[in-house]
């Protein structure tokens, strides 16, 4: 028997679906950015788009004992860029961000211009791992001349969201699910009475070009000049059969990052997050990641340096077209984000 869906669940699923199914690989964030802008227009006090296309949304003014907090969720996704369409219409490509050839083959892609295609592979000897240069996109074209795509055209994976009850799967959970968390947090903040919103000036940044090297957040952090900040992103898990050993797992709560390959979270920020989760009874788990990087690094290293951390959502199959997250973890991340930014921050 299926549980009756709550209003919250319906709102959340519809938001996730809209965000994950909107194409927007790194450098092509204009459509997703405009959608998010529409969503937060009524609730942010000020909205700006900067030179690299980051969307900067301010909520609140800094009051006594308040801080300027940067919360960054990146809105780009991994994708492919065409480098050549051959005489038979097959499009060769390079990755935009980290793409695994194994998750490409047989996949479908959607170009920013609306063209669609499937990914095929050259014949390879048995046991040989395909490389991206062995793959091509077949857009149904019969020649270079009638191809709907050309050099420089960009596509993302094309796959609808799948609601699996407790879990939800989609392409680009990395990092549209963080945009969902940020938007839900903004909505929750806006619903709070003014007296409960805290003394902080909060900059929700929907950043660009994270997947190609944390670029958008680098310049956004310079603009925001925060006193403390954190990224929201997904993290890898170790909870699937014969997985690489990692402590993070779906369903165990919001992940509080201690480290990844790009930075070590400020211990004061880690404590701030743990204390908030504990005081509100929000389920959380510690994240120690052996790889990866997030906008947290950009916040930490901007200007003269900033105490920075990261809230992560445990996610299976990261960078595949079917990433998977847990709905309770998602709620935990939203609550934690709201709790952190709506109170006086004492590091």
């Amino acid at each position, binding site marked *: 028997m299926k549980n009756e869906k709550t209003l919250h669940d319906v709102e959340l699923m519809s938001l996730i679906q809209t965000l994950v199914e909107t194409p927007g690989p790194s450098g092509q964030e204009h459509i997703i950015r405009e959608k998010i802008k529409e969503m937060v227009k009524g609730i942010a006090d000020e909205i700006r788009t900067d030179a690299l296309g980051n969307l900067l949304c301010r909520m609140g003014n800094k009051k006594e004992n308040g801080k300027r907090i940067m919360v960054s969720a990146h809105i780009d996704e991994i994708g492919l860029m065409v*480098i050549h369409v*051959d005489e038979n219409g097959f499009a060769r490509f*390079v990755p935009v961000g980290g793409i695994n050839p194994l998750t490409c083959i047989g996949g479908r892609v959607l170009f920013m211009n609306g063209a669609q295609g499937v990914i095929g592979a050259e014949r390879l000897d048995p046991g040989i791992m395909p490389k991206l240069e062995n793959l091509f996109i077949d857009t149904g074209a019969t020649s270079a001349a009638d191809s709907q795509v050309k050099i420089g055209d960009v596509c993302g994976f094309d796959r609808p969201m799948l609601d699996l009850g407790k879990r939800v799967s989609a392409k680009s959970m990395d990092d549209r699910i963080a945009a969902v968390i940020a938007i839900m947090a903004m909505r929750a903040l806006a619903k709070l009475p003014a007296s409960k919103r805290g003394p902080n000036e909060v900059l929700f940044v929907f950043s660009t070009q994270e997947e190609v090297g944390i670029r958008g957040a680098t*310049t956004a952090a310079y*603009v925001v000049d925060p006193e403390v900040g954190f990224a929201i992103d997904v993290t890898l898990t170790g909870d699937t059969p014969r997985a690489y050993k990692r402590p993070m797992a779906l369903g165990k709560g919001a992940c509080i990052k201690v480290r990844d390959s790009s930075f070590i979270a400020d211990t004061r920020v880690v404590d701030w997050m743990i204390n908030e989760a504990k005081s509100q009874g929000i389920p959380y788990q510690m994240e120690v990641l052996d790889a990866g990087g997030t906008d947290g690094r950009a916040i930490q290293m901007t200007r003269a340096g900033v105490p920075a951390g990261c809230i992560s959502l445990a996610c299976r199959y990261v960078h595949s077209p079917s990433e998977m997250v847990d709905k309770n973890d998602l709620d935990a991340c939203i609550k934690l984000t709201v709790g952190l930014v709506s109170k006086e921050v004492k590091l």
Partner: protein
Amino acid sequence: MATQNKVKSINFSLGKKEIDLLTRLCNAVSVSGDEQKVRQIVLEEVKNLADEVKTDALGNVLVTKKGSGPNCLRVMLSGHMDEVGMMIVKESEDGTYEFRVIGGIDPRQLVGKLVLVGRNLVPGVIGAKAIHMTTPEERKVAIPVEQLRIDLGPGAKVAIGDRATFATKLAVLGPSIRSKAFDDRLGVFNLIQLLKHAPANVDLFLAFTVQEELGLRGAKVAAFSFDPQIGIALDSTPANDLPFFEGDEENTHYNTHLGAGPAIYLMDGATIGDRRLVNWLSESADAAGIPWQYRQPGTGGTDAGAIHKTRAGVPSVSVSVPQRYLHSAAGLVRKQDVVNTFKLIHTALSRLDPSILNS
């Protein structure tokens, strides 16, 4: 069928004066970290043309030339003065020296090359065993740099830390030019030409940068100084356009084609080109009838990689002259590609409007 170009581009060609400047620039030895020889030429060339010239802490030459209109965009253009090369690390016996490469050089490109070492340009050669003495197995693998030596002969006066580069002299070969260090003396050359023919509608911030080959280091601080609204890196990029030698497959990884015009970047390893700027460049070229091509998206990087991440962010793009045999002793470019690269940049800047940043 003759077509009418909507925009007239500048009348520019590689005459004796231009070839002479390019020759001096390319023949100068200016390996990353010691760019003084090229810097001297640049300072001499720009001194009577610029509003302001300064050499910054890292050795970049920063040149400002203000436009005359009220709404001039602050446009930074960069060309790097450094080139890949070698550095002496140890004296071996009999006037031979161990060395390391500075920047990206394929070790297979080193054997048998003539080099110049140190500021006194001591001539030498990178030797290797004669074919008579090698086995077929040895000939299948590149000799590691650590096992190669620069042979200067006994009594040579060079020191640990001295830089070296290929001894190639520039030569005009019909429609082509051959030289070392086109990467990026062509960028330096085009920046100087731009100053000589400065469009009045923009504020030009020309950065002759250092240490690009080691990681875009000069451009990073130059962009911080200039704080521009738009960034453009002028560089040189491989033309891997010769046919495959195996099978009859279509070459799908050519990067660029020689003779097909300036290469506009969509994406490399360090930058995603700002699409407004990519389109502005290609539309300018089309309007003026200047041939152009996209550089195939891929890895690598130019000064744009540093510029666009500066301060609050700078929309940036790169344009390169296609070149065969990049980062070797002898690169080869087409004269027309050099001319058309300058024409494209000049034409595009001349029709640049501040509204581009609002689109």
